[in-house]
């Protein structure tokens, strides 16, 4: 399983996401998932700031889309 598939499962399967947050390496081992060490380290860093990660997309888009004089959502 690749990083993107694991992240997607974390986003859509609360049980898996909770297990990963409690014990990332143990959960991956139990599920037979192999990631590169740098990917595991990156996931740990991401989970330590998970709220910011969830808001990455909207956080970047919001100021541009919703406050841009060029874009009026009422007419889109």
């Amino acid at each position, binding site marked *: 399983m690749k*990083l*993107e*598939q694991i*992240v*997607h499962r*974390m*986003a*859509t399967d609360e049980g898996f996401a909770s297990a990963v947050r409690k014990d990332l390496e143990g959960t991956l081992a139990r599920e037979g998932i192999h990631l590169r060490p*740098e*990917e595991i*380290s*990156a*996931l740990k*860093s*991401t989970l330590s*700031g*998970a709220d*910011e*990660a*969830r*808001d*990455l*997309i*909207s*956080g*970047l*888009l*919001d100021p*541009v*889309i919703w406050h*841009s004089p*060029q*874009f009026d*959502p009422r007419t*889109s």
Partner: protein
Amino acid sequence: MRQSLLADPHGAPASRAQRPPWLRLPLLCCQAAGGDPGLAEPAAAAWVLLYAAAHLLDSTQDGDPPEAWWEPLGPGPASNVATGLIATSALLLGSGPRPARSRLTQDFFQTVLQMSSAQHFDLTVPTPSLDDCWRMAEAKSGAFFGLACRAGARAAGIDEALVSHYSSYGASLGLLLQIGDDLSDLAAVGVDAAGRAGHGRMTLPIAYFLSVASADAVCELNSVGADPGGLLRPDRGVVEILRESGTGLYLTAKVHELRQRGACALRRAAKPSPALEQLLEMLESFPPAV
């Protein structure tokens, strides 16, 4: 390569304050490698000219909205300006001291060939996979920023094994910039007057979504304003669907991975110095919101 170096959005020449910090990469890498940054100036100037040319060609090939300075000229003359920039870059490289100049010139234009090959793939493959997108990013932004750092470090006269670490650092930084560009593109598409996306290039967030989402989720995204070709209208529904699929988590994980990879490579090659600190800070600065 979304940032113009030739002019600000209104067509005025870019001021010093508007110039991005990574323009100094060759000089900083030379300094971090123990050299006088002046030694890297010809390579730095040639690299900046190539960046400006690549940005201009990218814009005309993608059909992006023109910048103010070339809007009255049109894409044909703008492409010709890019050719002039490439030729000037080659002349600059050829004016440096022997024997370094032949190696430098070869490295520059091998990188340009690699980038052209990836650009051809980008322009001709309608729905590249997520892996394809990463390969293209590595062969374009990664290779180009790797070149800047390699050229700067090499000007300091260090061993080639150490030069390769600077190259890895630059490649990581280039990919971080690509993530930032792709997120900005998500925000920018749909803003033009015709209501169409500015370009049809697949972005990393959409490529991630298409690689993991169910057919139902893809249909849902299409129904609120996006299509599988990566064109996307700005819409709260689109943002929610991308967020629920873990797009933010995935890109953040990739950002952490690239920062770690870049910092690790740099620390293998450079001794503690102010230049090293500035290079490490640059890794943390891109993309700006993470």
